[in-house]
């Protein structure tokens, strides 16, 4: 009986912590540096996810996101910015720049080709 109680409590705690960790814990965010040429640039490392995965940029200034894919795992082989109609292959161990100009404020999700790895672009 005791064993059952322990397993139940442990199980519930585990479920809570899994959901907290994946859904509610804070993610790393980075703001873009505005360079002299009027481009805001952020470097992102792609390895099982996007690092950083929350990117803050300013409205109306062109953005260059340099994605460096540090793995060969198929999952991350494409980057998709659905709102900007961008879908680009990311060659492994290479930097692929993605350039666009966000015109509207808001939060835009970017994902891998299959929507499993996610990051957020916040335009202010």
């Amino acid at each position: 009986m005791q064993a059952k109680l322990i397993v139940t409590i442990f199980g519930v705690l585990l479920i809570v912590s899994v959901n907290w960790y994946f859904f509610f814990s804070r993610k790393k965010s980075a703001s873009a540096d505005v360079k002299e040429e009027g481009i805001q640039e952020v470097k992102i490392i792609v390895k099982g996810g996007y690092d950083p995965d929350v990117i803050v940029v300013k409205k109306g200034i062109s953005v260059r996101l340099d994605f460096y894919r540090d793995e060969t795992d198929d999952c991350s082989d494409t980057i998709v910015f659905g709102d900007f109609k961008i879908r680009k292959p990311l060659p492994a161990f290479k930097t692929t720049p993605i350039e666009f100009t966000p015109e509207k404020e808001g939060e835009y999700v970017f994902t891998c080709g299959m929507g499993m790895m996610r990051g957020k672009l916040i335009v202010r």
Partner: protein
Amino acid sequence: MAKDLVCGMEVKEEEAAGFSLYKDKKYYFCSKNCKEKFDENPEEYLKSEEREKEQALPEKEVEPEPAKEHGEKSERIDIPIVGMSCASCASTIQRGLADLKGVEKANVNFATSSATVLFQPHLVKPEEFISSVRKSGYEVGTVSLELPIQGMDCASCVQKIEKALLQTRGVTKAVVNLATEKAKIEYLSSETGIKEIKRAIESTGYKVLELAPSEEVEDPERLIREKEYKKLKTKFIVGLVLGLFVFLGSSRHWFPWVPSFLGNFHVLWALATPVQFWIGWQFYKGAWGAFKHRNADMNTLIAVGTSAAYLYSVTATLFPSFFEAGGIKPAVYFDTSALIIVLILLGRLLEARAKGQTSEAIKKLMGLSPKTARVIREEKEVDIPVEEVLVGDTIVVRPGEKIPVDGIVKDGKSAVDESMITGESIPVKKKAGDEVIGATINKTGSFKFQATKVGKDTALAQIIKLVQDAQGSKAPIQRLADVISGYFVPIVISIAIATFVIWFNFGPFPALTFALLTFVAVMIIACPCALGLATPTAVMVGTGKGAEKGILIKGGESLETAHKLDTIVFDKTGTLTRGEPEITDIVIQNDYSEEEILKYAASAEKVSEHPLGEAIIKRAREKKIELHDPKNFNAIEGHGIEAEVDGKKVLLGNLKLMQKQKIVVRNLEEKAEELAGDGKTPMYISLEGKAAGLIAVADTLKENSLQAVAKLKKLGLEVIMLTGDNKKTAEAIARKAGIDRVLPEVLPEDKVNEIKNLQSKGRRVAMVGDGINDAPALAQADVGIAIGSGTDVAMEASDITLIKGDLRGVVSAIELSKRTIKIIKQNLFWAFFYNTAGIPLAAGVLYPFFGILLNPIFASAAMAFSSVSVVSNSLRLRRVKL
């Protein structure tokens, strides 16, 4: 501040990445890399530093010396100019150039489309000439080039290379990107070439990698991929052998002939361990990578699931007494963990292969781009890289060769195979004045043509871009799947844990075993991949297939709307019809022959520029009738023309003209009315004051219009014709095309409103037009289909572009969209159904009722094949017949 001797960058001592002590002096470096280089050979860097100092000194002395300014030799530069249409343009440009400080003489030649400037190089830079030309409103024929550079490791390298490039004569712009390791260069091909540019970069100590057109850029990636694939294959084979042994050893109750030592727990452990940690390493790696980013993916599920089975078995092997104390016979599940890994690996192998095929169409398109062009420069034929071809260049193409860029034939005749661009399988005849498309293949004769579009403006480049964009888009139908896949994995983990707890608490004896097996099965069977792949793979294959057939679809959204259409509106002129009037009937009177009538009418029209006149001349030429120059030609506004041909007075025009000249037309009038009723335009002709007959001209239907309309009707669409013609004419044409509903007398600017009208009645409307004057209507329609043109405007406004003018393409496009959406729906249904049915099954919901429990090994097999089946289903689109 200290100077990094390796890269030349200024570094703050306190921020330096490191320093080296050499001959009692400290040297600071911006990066570890620089420090290592210095340590390898410090003397070399010290020497080159000294050399630079020596060179720098005299320079400083030279600068302030004004006397030298006058003695400086002036230089000459030739700049090709694009977009000059008249001699006055030339003088505008010339004035702009001559006004620049330091320019001694500027001469712009309209005939050669180039500017020659004599200038003082220390006072003015060639870049300024270019901006001056651009300010005058013209473009400079620069060539842009992207070169990959190897060995850059800090920001100062960038400046060094950019400086070296800009100092190279003829280079107008140079931007080096450290992140992509590429230099973007714009240069004047009249002044310099790739060789000089490469030399300039290499003089700074960096290496230029081989010129890489887009397909080659992918090469290293493909190599890595192939290597991975091979590695995966080896792993799979080794895993399969080991897994089989583990399976046999664990199932001795089924295979009594298996030697008993294989059933030993320790032996099984030894066999399963390499599978778990060598072959399955990628799952751990992937899972950890995702975990760090607070993500969870397939790898997480597989790593956690198999580890649970593996660790349980290890415990049972090492501490059997622990289980025995609880009254459970210790058992191991090494076969479960090992076979799951092997099966999922197999699934990945198959998926990788299938996924590679989905992007084949775009790779094929990229592979079409030609590499070199044979251009006439200074009256000589020279082979140059296609990147250096300028607008206006004359290019020579021999039989069997690829046409390098878009252009217009100047000289020669040939037949060209355009199937790769338009999907048209029969070679198209080309003569002077005809357009040719880059990447198509010249078949029979040789010809010369003038380049009109190069680089990213060519039809092929535009098509590639469009298809790439389309493949990057998603159909709205995917949205739900996207939302789900984002939350999927953590939820599955939660369900698996809950399953474990429930089985442990309420399951039959041995509860721990059941709890473990159901936990593993739930983790392993869930397959978010299938959800994620459902739409993108189908959109990729569908749009790729379309591109092969000359149907360019803008994206997933267009595909999805196209299959829901119920109304299709055709613009008449140029869409349903050829857009060029043709002679349809000739009525003769007073014993004149058809040839005679044609001869006089065509000769009289020779100097007129009326489209109806052109139709007559065209027919006369086709019939090889000799034409003579008319005398006393006179165009009578609103009536027709009069002229003298071979001494005979010819009148050609409407009834009013005949009445005015008091010519008796008798029964011709009746005939003319009949022709007008058929939607034709009749013209009277009289010779020497006597009525000679009628020539009726009409815009005729394209060959396949009737067939296309019939097919569209069969697909259940209402077909409507939109035209500016009067009702009678419009109805006559519509009847011939098999169209029942006509919207006549619509002014061009009202086309949009007609579409809006239909939409307000709840119709989903497609508009088919030639894309140029119909752009607003195309954009307003739910699906805009631009036909027979690759113009930017048309592509911009439309959702679907048909490269060929053939209307059957409309049918194909709609059919393709219907098929693609059907495949997407099947995929999504399969993926949803699979997961919603599979997870409860794996959790054991059937056990209390039927005693059925899913073996985790079957769960893994099901998972592996669910994503493969989705991709294979999408690949079926490649075989659709259009």
